[in-house]
């Protein structure tokens, strides 16, 4: 992602001024939210403080920090998301590399790939319901099958875009198939693969929540819709907070992994540019 700071103005004092200003607005907005909801006293809109406190009491007040409710309401969702995404990534990257390395296979499957990628993932939920059933396997397979396409397609196009010169250099160095794959193709395609991982994660969260809507007995999505239907507005906001935290933290985690894995890439960019 491009952090947008206009070149030339990044003087020493600006390095502190910019984040300070940013956090100033964020804190001000939360303060306005707090004051507005506190004075309004609406049942629909609890104050942010109440929401955070409810989350703390509900999930983080157990004898060893996490409560039983956390394991009942949050952990199942995390498990489904993790397993589903992991399957999507492994399958997507492997098939993407396979297709990307063979021109005939690529031409054979390209129309199908475009079709699957263009299909809005959540439409698969009713299909999964009928074909797989209503259990955990339905939720995991929905996430895996829905989130596999962006990563597959991104890997495929990144592999096809590996510069010809790199492959030629590999040939000159008499690298075998495995070495070509792990030392040339995958590193060269890694930025594209990471872009796919990000997209599939965001899609996975949507699919997770949608899948926990039908015939579920636990999970964040279940809690979210249940609390809304039973008019427990504070709980509903708490689940919104939980889901926001899931989105935010998964993004943070991916950024951290990306920074470590792609460090060589940024270094290279710094050298060549």
């Amino acid at each position: 992602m491009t952090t947008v700071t206009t070149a030339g103005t990044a003087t020493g004092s600006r390095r502190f001024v910019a984040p300070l200003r940013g956090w100033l607005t964020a804190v001000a907005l939360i303060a306005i939210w707090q004051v507005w909801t506190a004075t309004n006293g609406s049942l629909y809109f609890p104050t942010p403080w109440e929401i955070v406190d409810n989350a703390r009491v509900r999930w983080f007040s157990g004898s060893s920090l996490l409560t039983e409710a956390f394991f009942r309401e949050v952990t199942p969702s995390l498990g489904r998301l993790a397993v589903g995404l992991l399957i999507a990534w492994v399958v997507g990257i492997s098939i993407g590399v396979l297709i990307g390395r063979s021109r005939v296979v690529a031409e054979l499957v390209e129309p199908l790939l475009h079709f699957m990628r263009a299909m809005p993932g959540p439409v698969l939920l009713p299909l999964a319901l009928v074909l797989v059933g209503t259990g955990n396997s339905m939720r995991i397979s929905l996430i895996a099958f829905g989130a596999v396409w962006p990563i597959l397609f991104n890997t495929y196009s990144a592999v096809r875009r590996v510069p010809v010169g790199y492959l030629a250099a590999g040939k000159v160095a008499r690298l075998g198939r495995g070495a070509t794959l792990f030392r040339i193709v995958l590193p060269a395609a890694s930025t594209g693969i990471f872009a796919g991982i990000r997209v599939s994660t965001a899609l996975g969260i949507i699919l997770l929540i949608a899948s926990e809507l039908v015939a579920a007995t636990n999970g964040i999505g279940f809690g979210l819709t249940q609390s809304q239907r039973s008019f427990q507005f504070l709980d509903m906001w708490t689940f919104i907070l939980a889901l926001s935290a899931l989105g935010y933290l998964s993004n943070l985690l991916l950024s951290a992994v990306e920074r470590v894995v792609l460090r060589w890439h940024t270094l290279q960019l710094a050298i060549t540019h």
Partner: protein
Amino acid sequence: MSIERVQTRPAPTEATPAPPAGEPSAGSGRDGGTRVPPWLRRCRPALLGSAGVLGFLLTWEIVATFGLMPRNDLPPASATLVRAAELIGDGPFMRNVLATLWSSAVGLIAAVAIAVPAGLLLGMSSRLHDFTSTVVELMRPLPPIAFVPLLVLVVGPGLEMKASVVALGCLWPLLTNTIHGVHSTNGVAISTGRTFGWTRWQVTRRIIWPAAVPSILVGVRITVSVALILCVGAEYIGGSTTGLGSWLLQQSQLPQGIDSVCAGVIIAGLLGLLVNGVVSALDHRFGAWARQEEDA
């Protein structure tokens, strides 16, 4: 969490793959006797592609007819395609499809109407940008789908709710792409405009805006598919009564609904292709000149 991060150019996701190494170029037919006529070479992707689609349909037909799936419910490809053709001519079904398309379009247009002016402002004023960037960075990764129950309470489960969810999800990629577009403006061009004595408005209108358009269009391209995904997701979670998602969910609960569900999924895929195609065409029409300039 936003579906798609900023992409400065239609990089990995959107790119047409370059031919890999070692392929003989189209003109050189001297590969030891197996001379392929040029027309066949040109048609090769189309031929192989159709073969792939046909092969897929055939496999599906065989798997369904002989019941090779663990649960023997999958209708054969032929039956599904027939049902899909029926559905396309079916008034009530198409009204649901149009409801989804319309909600996505309204949400996307609202997002463009907010994000593009805001992005231009934030792109041009580094002070404004400083004050807002943290909030944007905090808001961007939030899954828009999380706000569905809240929006259902406030505006009900209809068009307004769906369009708001779509707008909420499309806002951030559009905003960051617009800001990026403004920042990619050639500084010399802006100075040149100023020496002509142009006003701030004229500089914006004649230099910054044209420079930002390609990046904005990339943002629109990204968010179109996001809009459809969010709209269908919002229909499930919000319990809407109209829309493709609600229709599919209703059909899946009918005893013989699986044919319709499969057909509906196929139509959803075609719809996605259609929408992407329209946006690509728009992009070609309005964005191509700028890319040529960039390449030159």
